């Protein structure tokens, strides 16, 4: 028994160690401050989207729950942070907490339904709940501002750093939030709990047979992912000082799915890489014409599915294996 646990111990230890490339990657995330000071607000959008994609990765990439309605939690977080800032106070850290609690409650409540389904019913149910919430926010315009969105509040600063038009504080804020959530995800993925999630993804019937509480694990993962999506939504609210109805839309759910698949689902950096490629490409292409952006993203999707089934990161690691 002691032997087995020590083998497990070394397995987890070898996984937990940081690869030099990871240090390099996070050092590179600081470069926009120096190299592209005009693009810092885009960079903060990318960091927020990356956090959102990371939260989807936790349930889709690791636990195998396909969701077409993940924007529900992003929107819940965005609206709770916005409502708090509009009606009470504009201090962002307490806004993050409120968003995390609200999204977490929503996620926990929905998780009881969602984890029981698979395949088309699962996709349709997550999409259905997302659409329901979108319609509800649209109808309750007294509270949410309806189709005009929630406006008329200003989040001035975080910890004394002002959110100005250059976006330095905004990017730093989004980046720190992304990094902290990344650390949490990394810890979860390399824990026995993360291993159990992957087990459920690979074979949903065998895991309960070896005594793993499958549904409880999935509920836990779903709730954590909802909290992170809520944090991403709140960060968007704080850095832009508005909440639009679009935060809850089906389009946002589909976009984040595309981003994650593009980068590589089931890989810690998949969502982040996907967000960088997608957002930079969108920024460039929609500058030319927003209509044709759909053409390129469609082509990209077809190409990824046909030629890079595990996303950009999966393709890279396959290349490296071939080289060795």
């Amino acid at each position: 028994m002691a032997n087995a646990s020590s083998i497990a111990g070394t397995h987890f230890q070898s996984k937990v160690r940081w690869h030099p490339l990871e240090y390099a990657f996070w050092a590179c995330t600081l470069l926009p401050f120096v190299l592209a000071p005009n693009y810092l607000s885009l960079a903060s959008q990318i960091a927020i989207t990356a956090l959102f994609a990371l939260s989807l990765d936790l349930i889709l990439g690791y636990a195998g729950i396909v969701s077409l309605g993940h924007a529900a939690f992003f929107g819940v977080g965005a609206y709770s942070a916005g409502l708090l800032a509009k009606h009470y106070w504009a201090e962002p850290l307490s806004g993050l907490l409120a968003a995390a609690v609200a999204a977490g409650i929503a996620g926990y409540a929905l998780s009881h339904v969602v984890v029981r389904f698979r395949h088309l019913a699962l996709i349709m149910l997550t999409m259905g709940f997302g659409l329901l919430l979108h319609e509800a926010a649209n109808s309750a315009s007294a509270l949410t501002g309806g189709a005009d969105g929630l406006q008329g509040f200003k989040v001035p600063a975080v910890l004394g750093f002002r959110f100005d038009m250059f976006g330095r504080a905004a990017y730093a804020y989004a980046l720190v939030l992304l990094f902290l959530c990344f650390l949490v995800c990394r810890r979860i993925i390399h824990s026995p709990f993360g291993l159990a999630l992957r087990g459920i993804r690979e074979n949903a019937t065998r895991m309960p047979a070896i005594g793993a509480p499958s549904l409880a694990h999935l509920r836990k993962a779903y709730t954590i992912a909802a909290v992170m999506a809520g944090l991403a939504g709140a960060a968007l609210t704080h850095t832009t000082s508005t909440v639009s109805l679009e935060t809850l839309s089906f389009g946002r759910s589909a976009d984040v799915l595309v981003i994650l698949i593009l980068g590589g689902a089931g890989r810690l950096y998949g969502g982040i890489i996907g967000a960088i490629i997608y957002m930079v490409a969108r920024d460039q292409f929609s500058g030319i014409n927003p209509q044709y952006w759909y053409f390129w993203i469609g082509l990209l999707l077809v190409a990824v599915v046909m030629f890079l089934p595990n996303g950009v990161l999966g393709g890279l690691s396959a290349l490296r294996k071939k080289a060795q």
Partner: protein
Amino acid sequence: MLSSLATVLFDGFAYGMLLFMLSVGLSVTLGMMNFVNLAHYAFAVIGGYATVTIVNKLGWNFFVSLPLAFAVAALVSVALERVLFRRLYRASDLDQCLLTIGIAFITIAVFAWFYTSEPQSVPAPLPRDKPFSILGAQFGQYRTFLIVFGLAVTAVLILLLEKTRFGAQVRAAVDNQRMARGLGIDVERAFMITFALGGGLAGLGGALSIEVIGLDPSFALSYLLVYVLIVVAVGGLGSIGGSFVAATVLGITETAGKYYFPWLGAFLIYLVMVAILMWRPAGLFGKR
């Protein structure tokens, strides 16, 4: 009150017929090959633009353009099936979703390029201002045509599926694909024909819906795709009867909701869908 109820039921039923034609192909192909084709509605868009082109550019009659819309959509769907889709029959749900969403996006952009993103229309195929009037209730001419046509299509489909050799092959493949193969049925060929039929019907639905819903490159993505998926999921995969019932219920609920509870928006539809799927995950008439 009663006559307005009759009109609402009638309009809802006509709308349901449209939804049925748009979604039945997806339901049957999903049931046969488990292939999640989110690009199905692209065939509807293709059929719609085919009709717009034929009627407005060539000046032909609307009703003459319908079989052509069917043919064009069927041809495109077979081409896509041959070139792209058949490589992914064994891939995961997610990969299929993504590939077909990608094709849907490309379709939107291509049509926006050639036809601009302005909504398109055709001259009214049947006079709009002369509804049939029975006991004070108003029944639009075009909607009457939709219902008659939709019921005829349903009857033909059911006969085709229940009474012909080809229909028996399709049903066998839906029930148990491996067993059907084992008995020597050419499932690939049956699937290709079904796919063409389904795509053609969607094209027909797209052409017919110009007068009711309108047509622009992205209308289908935000609107049709969701409704078509609801019909398929609620009706149950591979079930023509299920699709028919689901489409009718959805059409009537949507029309009645708009008429009696306009402030609810689409909320009611989504609520009904979520409730039905939680109660029966495989749909009302689904076997799996």
